[in-house]
């Protein structure tokens, strides 16, 4: 993983999450088996989203367009290049979701769907079992990374609207009723 030195939070995420060059290699290696299956998975994804009454209004009338962007995004997970461009892309996706007012819950739920749906596809279609296990681990790490980057945009908008600093946001998120430990 190429991580921006100016972004200590992202470095922490990658360090603890174990994102490394290994992920790039394995994802690029297995891509050939998985890419042809991604349009089908995308269809299923939008069926699930459309079944949920609270989500439907957000996607109505633009499902075909959304499917196209979604397949491109899914393919990018298997591109084996998770450098600055990949990071910026996820941040842009976060901005777009803020612009169209998609609540964070729906992104989290969608990620949960993908975390559940993708591993069996990998297990069933990657011929080498070791590769399938390694690719699944990498994929789950990447999905978490994407969600973290998208969620960060929501946090930035919240901070901007409240006029608060990142440090104050963290304090407000962690000094709840009954929090016993002294704040660091």
């Amino acid at each position, binding site marked *: 993983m190429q991580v921006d030195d100016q972004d200590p939070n992202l470095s922490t995420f990658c360090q603890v999450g174990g994102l490394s060059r290994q992920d790039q290699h394995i994802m690029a290696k297995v891509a050939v088996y998985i890419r042809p299956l991604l349009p089908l998975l995308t269809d299923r994804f939008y069926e699930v989203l459309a079944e949920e009454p609270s989500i439907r209004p957000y996607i109505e009338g633009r499902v075909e367009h959304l499917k196209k962007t979604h397949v491109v995004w899914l393919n990018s997970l298997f591109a084996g290049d998770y450098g600055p461009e990949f990071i910026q892309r996820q941040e842009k996706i976060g901005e777009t979701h803020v612009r169209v007012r998609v609540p964070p819950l729906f992104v989290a739920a969608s990620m949960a769907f993908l975390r559940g749906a993708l591993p069996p596809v990998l297990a069933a279609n990657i011929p080498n079992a070791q590769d399938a296990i390694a690719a699944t681990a990498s994929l789950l790490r990447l999905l978490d990374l994407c969600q973290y980057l998208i969620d960060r945009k929501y946090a930035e908008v919240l901070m901007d*609207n*409240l*006029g*608060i*600093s990142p*440090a*104050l946001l963290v*304090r*407000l998120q962690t*000094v*709840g*009723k009954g*929090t016993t430990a*002294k*704040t660091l």
Partner: protein
Amino acid sequence: MREDQIKSILTDLNGRSASIEASALISKDGLVLTSALPGQMDEDRVSAMVAALLSLGDRTAAELSCGQLEQTLVTGSHGHILIVHAGPQAVLCAIANKTAKLGLLFLDVKYAAQAAAALLQ
């Protein structure tokens, strides 16, 4: 030393009027710098809320073209919470009961904030 001086600014403020029950100096990030708050209050939590309130006041004043924020006043059935900037890095918060004369409270808190800001520079 500086902490003692700030503490004495708060103690003076609390002593200036019987209506002022407590006060605290808080960083913009919501950390208590010095406080003279009643024992039962959760300092960490209250400080984060106070810093957020003032920031939100700043933002709202700017959005509504009210100019530079001077203070945020929260009034409940039992009393008032007055929050003002104390220089660029800190916030002064005073809690007063319902008997407080607001004009005097505003002045006392403003002077205390100016004194604290000078010490924090």
